[in-house]
């Protein structure tokens, strides 16, 4: 075998690791600079959904309170998520679902897996629908017609699906490069929008632009702030399956938290949502296709909206890439070529292409509960990895489906973790229902997401101490290093 043959094989294996569940070694990571990871995080987060969320922030009764509360919430939601999901994936180069097997069991990880797939696939279709509806709305304005062209919306959606497949099949390197252009562009568009708002209305007017009192959720500033914080915390929680999938591609420790919080939270979510909130409150419509066109005028408006919609491509590609990696947790899919996995994931999108309004009405409402899925999972995986296992996992046991593995628990399922995660979800909804905004009295002081993360983490810590450790389940009593159980490298499998 020549050197070039050997290099080609190594490159192919590294590529298959990037497109699959194989652990990615430090030297194979593609994010080697702070800026490159920051731009991907920013571009990913700054999709049309950021404009939509921003448009809904004034509904808490006071736009400034909505913006500040959302910023606080996004940071407070993202930090535990990065520590719980991002840290183990970064250290071991593995998918967050594989890392979660330490706490949920090698089969019990199906719970975070279902949440992860629902998040990634659900949001991919929502962004496809948002892009198609946005394009149809743009065409309606340009043609000055009464109704949006549904055929055009379907064609845009189908074309978007094809584009997502074409880019995603090339792996993460391509979206890493594309993000370096789209993220600064998205920020330029947002700064331009802010400049237009300030130029037309001036700061004193903007700061006092609120929705009509009768359309606000509350006139109580304390409760309004709690709502805004919860919007941000719930948004942060939805990143649990995503952050780990990205940090396994990061090479340097100091590039972990900063780009995630700044890119996903501050720039991609809070800044864009803040400008959207002000724009929506000023123009009087939460729909970005309406206020953006109204603000930008006949030339700049359509140009900016076209760029914002086109930039959605990066978000959809990253979501599809991560879903492609995650779905390989299902064993039959591990052996299917990457291109085919992507086709399988995107194929239901053909139905979505013809039902974009339905997706935004039904799926979008269901996705309001997305953050709820991960409050318990975040608390458990945070305490398990950082506190109970002191950041040491046994890679051999993570990939061993046998009673001899230390993460086998009961039939491969840690029912205690599953139970705590489900209880956290139920209690969260009892404290605060994201679709009706019904909340208990203490919600105004604590929110619901942060207490549930603390509850899940604390409950799991105590149950490990009093139940799992005495029963010698989960390997909590032994040092968490490789080759110390009765399983060996011969037993591992994907």
């Amino acid at each position, binding site marked *: 075998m020549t050197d070039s043959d050997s290099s080609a094989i190594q490159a192919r*294996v590294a590529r*298959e690791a990037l497109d699959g569940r*194989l652990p990615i070694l430090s030297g194979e990571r593609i994010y080697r600079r702070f800026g490159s990871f920051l731009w991907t995080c920013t571009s990913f987060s700054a999709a049309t959904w950021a404009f939509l969320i921003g448009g809904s922030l004034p509904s808490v009764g006071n736009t400034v309170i909505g913006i500040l*509360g959302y910023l606080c919430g996004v940071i407070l939601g993202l930090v535990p998520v990065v520590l719980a999901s991002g840290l183990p994936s970064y250290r*071991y180069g593995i998918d967050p679902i594989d890392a979660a097997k330490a706490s949920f069991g090698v089969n019990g990880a199906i719970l975070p897996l279902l949440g992860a797939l629902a998040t990634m696939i659900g949001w991919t279709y929502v962004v496809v629908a948002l892009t198609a509806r946005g394009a149809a709305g743009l065409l309606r304005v340009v043609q000055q017609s009464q109704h949006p062209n549904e055929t055009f919306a379907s064609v845009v959606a189908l074309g978007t699906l094809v584009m997502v497949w074409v880019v995603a099949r090339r792996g993460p390197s391509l979206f890493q490069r594309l993000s370096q252009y789209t993220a600064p562009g998205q920020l330029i568009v947002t700064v331009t929008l802010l400049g237009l708002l300030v130029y037309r209305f001036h700061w004193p007017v903007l700061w006092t632009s609120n929705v009509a009192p009768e359309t606000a959720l509350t006139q109580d500033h304390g409760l309004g702030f709690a709502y805004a914080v919860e919007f941000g915390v719930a948004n942060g929680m939805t990143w649990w399956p995503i952050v780990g999938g990205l940090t396994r591609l990061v*090479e*340097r420790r100091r590039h972990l938290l900063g780009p995630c919080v700044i890119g996903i939270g501050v720039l991609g979510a809070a800044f864009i949502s803040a400008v959207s909130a002000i724009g929506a409150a000023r123009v009087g419509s939460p729909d970005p296709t309406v206020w953006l066109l109204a603000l930008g005028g006949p030339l700049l408006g359509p140009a900016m909206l076209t760029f914002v919609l086109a930039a959605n491509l990066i978000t959809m590609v990253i979501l599809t890439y991560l879903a492609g990696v995650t779905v390989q947790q299902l064993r039959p899919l591990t052996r299917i070529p990457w291109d085919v996995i992507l086709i399988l994931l995107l194929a239901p999108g053909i139905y979505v292409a013809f039902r974009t309004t339905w997706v935004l009405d039904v799926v979008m409402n269901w996705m309001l509960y997305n953050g709820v899925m991960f409050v318990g999972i975040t608390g458990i995986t945070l305490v398990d990895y950082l506190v109970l296992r002191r950041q040491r996992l046994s890679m051999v046991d993570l990939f061993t489906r046998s009673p001899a593995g230390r993460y086998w628990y009961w039939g491969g399922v840690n029912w205690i973790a599953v139970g705590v995660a489900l209880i956290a979800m139920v209690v969260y909804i009892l404290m605060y229902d994201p679709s009706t905004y019904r909340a208990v009295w203490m919600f105004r002081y604590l929110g619901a997401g942060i207490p549930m993360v603390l509850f899940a983490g604390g409950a799991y810590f105590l149950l490990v101490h009093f139940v799992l450790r005495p029963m010698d389940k989960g390997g909590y009593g032994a040092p968490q*290093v490789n080759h110390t159980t009765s399983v060996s490298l011969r037993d*591992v499998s994907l």
Partner: protein
Amino acid sequence: MQDPEGLNAELSRRISAIASPPNSESECFASTRPVLYEALVWVVGALLLWIAAVIFV
């Protein structure tokens, strides 16, 4: 590489490689204390903003 034996053999090789130099000497296995300090700074900053917003807005 799509055959199960090939994938599992590559998985074994990578698990060994992760625990061995040069991977075990990379930043991936360095102390995460700076990340935890940074996390603390972000959380404290967000809480201060929360308190300031409640008091002043």
